[in-house]
């Protein structure tokens, strides 16, 4: 049994992962309204920005309506106990342009992510954040694609660079609870820093997987209001709040306010709340980044192919997050092969 007297850190990624679900068009008014709700709910961190993090506004992934720094400053104004965090992927974001810019906006936690086998590209970014006196965690994305031992080795690299926590992301929503137990369990056992899990709901397992992570010793858990996130969405925070409370895990969460935050998000982003559909299910099965759902649907429509075929083909090619450009190539190839509906 896990030690429930230890404090669980709850990260609210609504205004970052939700960006994928909202085609990166989140407005400052929405940031303000939701940040206040998150603060009230007692979540420890609120992550804000483009779906792929700092500097990721692009034709490749999608252009943000509002620049990073405006979103961050606006969110910061609404927060006091809840700390402001950002997602950073080296290869998209640079240290001097994006990270220093975010530091100036008052960001307190930088979650430096990379594809789960490439931790050494985070070395300079993590070191820079730590040298600036701020908090840095490592994030291993698409972590369903690597064996537990590989994840441990990569997480240890991040720990050695100075990361103060490491989060496994199930970016494709492809985990089963048994995978979570094995991977989180190994990391928890062998790392000095706290371990976290970030679920997606493509196979309907986001809460089950989050709970498996906590039971295996995770001290950090990610979620979004009503699951507002890429693909089929994340672990819904309001449900996590209920489950954490029922299981007597120790958190700062105010249950009613967390439930309210879910309702507020549902109103703010009405019409864009994620839902399970054939594309998100196939995305989870194929183990492809959840954020590909919208661009795959677009490309499949334009080129007249079945989006599910596109997902399975992308899965076969083991694409990583950031390879959205390959969607078009794959869809075009399928169209040429006569995969027309």
């Amino acid at each position, binding site marked *: 049994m896990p030690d429930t007297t230890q404090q669980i850190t709850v990260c609210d990624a609504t205004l970052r992962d939700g960006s994928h679900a909202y085609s990166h068009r989140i407005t400052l008014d929405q940031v303000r309204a939701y940040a206040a709700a998150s603060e009230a709910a007692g979540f420890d961190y609120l992550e804000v920005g483009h779906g792929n993090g700092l500097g990721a506004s692009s034709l490749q992934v999608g252009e943000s309506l509002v620049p990073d720094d405006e979103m961050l400053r606006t969110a910061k104004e609404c927060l006091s106990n809840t700390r402001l965090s950002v997602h950073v992927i080296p290869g998209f974001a640079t240290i001097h342009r994006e990270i220093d810019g975010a530091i100036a906006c008052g960001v307190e936690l930088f979650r430096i992510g990379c594809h789960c*086998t490439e931790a050494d590209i985070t070395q300079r970014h993590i070191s820079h954040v730590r040298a600036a006196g701020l908090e840095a965690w490592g994030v291993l994305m698409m972590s369903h694609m690597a*064996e537990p*031992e*590989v994840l441990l080795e990569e997480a240890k690299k991040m720990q050695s660079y100075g990361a103060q926590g490491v989060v496994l992301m199930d970016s494709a929503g492809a985990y089963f609870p048994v995978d979570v137990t094995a991977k989180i369990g190994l990391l928890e056992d062998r790392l000095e820093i706290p371990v976290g899990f970030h679920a997606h709901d493509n196979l309907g397992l986001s809460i089950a997987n989050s709970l498996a992570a906590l039971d295996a010793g995770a001290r950090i858990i990610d979620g979004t209001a009503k699951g507002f996130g890429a693909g089929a969405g994340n672990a819904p925070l309001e449900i996590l709040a209920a489950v954490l409370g029922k299981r007597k895990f120790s958190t700062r969460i105010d249950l009613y306010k967390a439930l309210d935050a879910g309702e507020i998000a549902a109103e703010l982003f009405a019409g864009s709340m994620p839902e399970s559909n054939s594309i998100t299910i196939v995305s989870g099965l194929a183990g492809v980044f959840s954020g590909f759902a919208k661009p795959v649907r677009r490309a499949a429509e334009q080129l007249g192919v079945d989006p599910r075929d596109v997902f399975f083909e992308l899965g076969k090619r083991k694409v990583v997050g950031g390879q959205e450009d390959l969607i078009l190539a794959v869809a075009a190839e399928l169209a040429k092969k006569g995969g027309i509906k």
Partner: protein
Amino acid sequence: MKPIEQLIRNDAVQVLASGSKDLSDLKSRHIFITGGTGILGKWLLELINLLNEDNDYGIRVTVLSRNPRSFITLYPRLGAMPWLKLIEGDIRHLSELPHDVSHIIHAAALTDRRLFASQPGNVADVNAFGTLRLLRAANLLEDIRKFVLLSSGLVYGAQPWETAQIDEKFAGPVRSNDVNSVYAESKRFAETIAQCAVSETKLPVVTLRPFAFVGPYQSLQLPWAVTDFIRDSLAGGPIRIMGDGTTVRSIMYASDFAHWVLAATAAGKPRETYNIGSPEPISLISLAESITGHFNPAPSIHTGIGQIGHDRNKLVPDVSLAMKDLGVKVTVPIGEAIRRSVEWHRLSQI
């Protein structure tokens, strides 16, 4: 076919028929073998020959050898295999591999105990830095599917007497500031160097830790217990054992050894380490008796030749992990292994 060739062919047929995890991943592949002219290398070539001839595996092999001409002279049948290419070179000066190599079996090492004493620096150089050189070359390959590192059961240091078998997690002490540790330390460092490549470039390394073995193609000039005993028996005896004969070893037959290595090349899990050897313990005195039993008159066995007070020791692996992951088993029990080895050495003397 000469009787001596028939003997090996029968062994190869039998061991491949014993089944293992699928070897089919090796079909049409190009295997690069270092140390391919030693006993393991020759047996690997025999098994691959059978897979190619009888099962159309289409495996190509390149063997790096310091002296390929002498190999071809001594073993013209093996040397003439159409799918085999021998290249001359020292692993320490290797600059690149054939670009289409898909599997590497790194068996080259200085394993002669006499060299540990006379040229310990060379042992360290070849075993550790030769491995580093090979790993770097492997990283330039188009599609490297497996890098099999032959380490040694000696990396475990001393096995506690009360432990029946040592498994892969066991870590015994090796004294680093001792020239007598050079072989074990060179193998330990080679393992660590290989793990660096795993961490840096995700090279699919499988580490094997072989224990003792016996069989055809084994040189009787090596000062190991089993080779000593066979050589002395062929010479009419006596067999001389330094201690009281209670020291415990386990000995695997060469066809099994090569088959396990081949199975690891096809199906070994990257990053994993496997003990390779027989899990069946045998004391030196029983070993000596099982050898002399094949001679008439049986050579005498003298024990307690050496100074008293030397500890008996033991080296027996737990091989359940290899059996599970590779689907292999020991097909030739120790008694039969000895019988076949003695027969081969008799025939090769004719």
